[in-house]
């Protein structure tokens, strides 16, 4: 080696983007990847091209995680969602870069998206222990009964993330699903999956139990079909589907009467409202006689 080493630019370390399933980072079981480019066609990375089997594995992971996550206290879910926001803040620069590449935005425009996305996590984190009070409650029964209507998560939700808004849109469809105690199988934007795959890395370090959110990249139509038809998926958000695919998937979803959210135009910068929180909630009404304190001591 010589002393006359020329000063060369350091060769950066590429990241192998992987799926996020059951708290782990597997490659697609199919071994397939596809090229992800930026808005100008420059190669960014090879993303896993998930198979039907990956989709089914993700459902198994989501189902396994459901009991624990739905059964966690709303306070704990809020703490964990807030932790996600904290971790995102720490990786803010990375997401700004990824969103800028993905959506062809300037750094400052991309930063607006990322900041809004982080703030959205915080917003939903605060909802976990409030939604039950807003949409549930006691009912004034005309008779000697007490009853209480309570929202409960519907179960495993398949989420077709928006195709255009690779991060703010993504966050806006994932956070409400898990805030209420559901678990999610998310199909990332087909063209711009990298922010979603990186989000998996954030979730993995935010105390979110493995399997609560599972992120798949690949061809939306290929992955969505088995999810829409899956008998152990309770609901599907079709946001990332075009009109033709959405209809096809809604028909398949009827087979076990999944709760369906149809695609609609959304401005993700606007105030979200609570519709996405209530979309994947069931209402359970529990009754009990109030009894009386009469001589018999009972009024069943």
């Amino acid at each position, binding site marked *: 080696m010589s002393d006359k080493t020329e000063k060369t630019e350091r060769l950066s370390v590429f990241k192998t983007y992987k799926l996020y399933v059951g708290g782990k980072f597997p490659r697609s079981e199919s071994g397939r990847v596809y090229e992800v480019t930026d808005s100008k066609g420059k190669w960014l990375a090879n993303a896993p091209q998930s198979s039907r089997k990956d989709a089914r594995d993700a459902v198994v992971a989501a189902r396994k995680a459901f009991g624990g996550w739905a059964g966690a206290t709303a306070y704990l879910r809020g703490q964990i969602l807030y932790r996600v926001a904290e971790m995102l803040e720490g990786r803010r620069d990375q997401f700004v870069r990824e969103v800028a590449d993905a959506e062809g935005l300037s750094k400052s425009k991309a930063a607006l998206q990322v900041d809004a996305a982080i703030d959205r996590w915080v917003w939903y984190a605060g909802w976990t222990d409030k939604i039950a009070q*807003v*949409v549930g409650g006691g*009912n*004034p*029964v*005309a*008779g000697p*009964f007490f*009853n209480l*209507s309570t929202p409960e998560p*519907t179960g495993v939700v398949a989420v077709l993330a928006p195709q255009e808004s690779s991060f703010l849109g993504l966050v806006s469809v994932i956070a409400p699903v898990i805030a209420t105690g559901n678990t999610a199988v998310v199909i990332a934007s087909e063209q711009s999956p990298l922010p979603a795959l990186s989000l998996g890395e954030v979730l993995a370090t935010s105390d979110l139990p493995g399997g609560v959110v599972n992120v798949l990249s690949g061809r939306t139509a290929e992955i969505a079909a088995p999810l829409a038809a899956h008998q152990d998926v*309770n609901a599907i958000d079709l946001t990332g589907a075009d*009109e033709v695919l*959405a*209809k096809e998937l*809604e*028909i398949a*979803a*009827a*087979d*076990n*009467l999944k*709760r369906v*959210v*149809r695609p609609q135009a959304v401005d993700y910068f606007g105030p979200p*409202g609570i*519709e996405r929180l209530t*979309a994947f909630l*069931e*209402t*359970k*009404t*529990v*009754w*009990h*006689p109030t009894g009386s304190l009469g001589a018999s001591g*009972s009024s*069943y």
Partner: protein
Amino acid sequence: MASPKASAFEYAPAPESRSVVDIAPSYGLFIDGEFTEAADGRVFKSISPSTEEVLSEVAQAGEADVDRAVRAARKAFEKWSALPGSERAKYLFRIARIVQERSRELAVLETLDNGKPIKETRDADLPLVAAHFFYYAGWADKLDHAGFGPSPKPLGVAGQVIPWNFPLLMLAWKIAPALATGNTVVLKPAETTPLSALFFADICRQAGLPRGVVNVLPGYGDTGAAVVAHPDVNKVAFTGSTAVGKEIARTVAGTRKKLTLELGGKGANIVFDDAPVDQAVEGIVTGIFFNQGQVCCAGSRLLVQESIHDELLDSLKRRLSTLRLGDPLDKNTDIGAINSAEQLARITALAEQGEAEGAERWSPACELPSSGYWFAPTLFTNVTQAHTIARDEIFGPVLSVLTFRTPEEAVAKANNTQYGLSAGIWTEKGSRILAVANKLRAGVVWSNTFNKFDPTSPFGGYKESGFGREGGRHGLEAYLDVR
């Protein structure tokens, strides 16, 4: 069901008078405020399932009639939705009051057309119908405060298809919230029970309801399918079987129609060893024999803790022996007729399958009337979770008895079904009620009671029992443009 020992329970016949209701020999469709014949002139007969007597001949709506009704509803929507909520409210209050005034007549009519005991139509169906209209009437001018944002908008024309088990009550569950929120309605009653909906059309006229706000189209499944598929319908609400519900979900896929479904069930009624046996037995009987078990939220699976199985079954059998089956118009009748020959055939076939698969069948000594459609109260013991009678909705007076040892096992068995509509819990231990209720995947959980309904309380299912809620504040959402 006279047995020598039960002689103390012999009753003289006490029939409610039929003269309170005047059933015309024929009825038309109710479109745009007028009774009218079907475009193609088709009619069908509605019979009394307890006697097989023809009650009336009813016009059968076809596609052309559906189209005409939807147009009428669309036309009426403009003015109806623009009315101040306080005015819509007053129409609904009027309807509630007229239902109350005519409740005896409607109870007798419903009992004749449906076959259910007068005791039930008089004391359950009709009071709940009136209460439902009264409840939603009050919402019409308070929608801003219902939690769906400021001035939530109606959807438009609601196509509603209802079942035969609670004809007028299901009509009320559908029409009251739809009108309160400013929608107009095309309603298809079931082919075996069209009459009370047609009487309701007359009530709308008495109430001065604007033409076209409520349209009633009797017919069979194809009529319902045409209502659901009509391109100018904005909202579809269906109560009925899960199979048809899935078909409807496929039909509206890819449209902007909002859908709510209230479908089948296979409710678990869980009895723990510390439950007061007599009360539990009453709850079990109410759970599965109310309305001859033709109830989507029936407690059709009895899960009894193993240690009290024999004691509970003895009491239950003793109690079933005192149930009085017969003339639905008799005020002492507990068990009326099955709604149709078709339903009777289905119940019969499933019960036979229960026997064939090895479950043990029992019914009290019970004489069935010679005409009409009847099925004796029946229970099956030695039922496993794999048995068809533990999985399929029978929709009849047939109870499948299973056992469990631990609360965890009870919950696992209760949830082991495609359905998720109702469940019951019987125990004296409060914390156990709350823990078990928490784990049950069902939309309505009755603890130490069963089959209680109230207009303020949301009702509806998890899983394949459907989606959306009817009743209460929650019931408004189905008819508002909120997502």
